[in-house]
């Protein structure tokens, strides 16, 4: 992988981290509000189903995770397992796709 792609990956990880900071704060605040307010699962689903706002928010959250996590895993695999070959990057692309697919499945589960 060239230094340009390495730099691009680093920028993507920093940018996705900035998005995740906001997403995690909003997510935690929402969770605390929902639990402390005593909302039931049915009431929560009643608010998320058909809500394009929550769909957009959690889609961004999931996609930011799918970008951020595999890039971090790339450094962990390189440094701790000395896995630096092309197969590592292929495995991580698959891992990213899996994160995105499972995450979006969960998002659609509360939207539809």
């Amino acid at each position, binding site marked *: 992988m060239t230094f340009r792609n390495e730099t691009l990956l*680093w920028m993507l990880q920093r940018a996705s981290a900035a998005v995740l900071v906001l997403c995690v704060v909003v997510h935690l605040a929402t969770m605390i509000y929902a639990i402390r307010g005593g909302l039931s699962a049915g009431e929560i689903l009643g608010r998320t189903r058909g809500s394009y706002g929550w769909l957009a928010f959690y889609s961004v959250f999931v996609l930011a995770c799918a970008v951020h996590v595999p890039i971090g895993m790339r450094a962990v695999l390189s440094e701790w397992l000395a896995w630096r070959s092309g197969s590592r990057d292929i495995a991580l692309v698959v891992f990213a796709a899996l994160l995105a697919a499972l995450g979006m499945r969960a998002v659609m589960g509360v939207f539809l």
Partner: protein
Amino acid sequence: MVWRGGSDGAFQEFEVPRYASQTVLDVVTHIQRALDPTLAYRYACRVGMCGTCAMTVNGVARWTCRTHIDKVAKDGALEIAPLRNLPVIRDLVTDMGEFFDKWAKARGCFEGTATRKDDFAKVTPESPGRVQVDAAIECIGCGVCYASCDVVTWNPDYLGPAALNRAWTLVNDTRDLANAKRLRAVAGDAGCHACHTHVSCTERCPKHISPTAGIAGLKRAVVKAALRGEL
């Protein structure tokens, strides 16, 4: 306890008399001159200028000529080993070749175009670039930062704090014209983007330089160049 042999060596115990203002280098020198002349170690200036006498003292990389025993061994026991992350030649001597090769890989050599016929370049001490250079230029190449860096341990290709700090001084040198090539050399997994900001280099640098700050500066400079399409 002093390391003897190569990387597969072992510690050997010596008894050394204590005296006031004694340094770790004094202890090693006493061992070689009075107890065992076969002990290999390296030093030159003895006053913290040349950067040759760095060793691992009680688990921490230090310049031994300026490290007083009082500071590092209150109970009088010392464990002296060669620097980490470098091949051991024998006893306390490491092969610094790879360490300095990485300075060359990071394009740590000044590249200007002025000749002796040109006038002096005018760089004011207050200029932002010169302020950055001043903060980083006093490196003596002792290898303490390199030996203290976990990323070097995990990623042998990583250029390391000293080479990147040197590159940072040149990135801020307005007379140098090789920055496009230099930023390419220090970008990526073996360069500044591999740094995890553990700050061990900054913590241990005997000259109180912050390679961490320089590496962060390189990250910013590389991203700016990438966004401008100059990388």
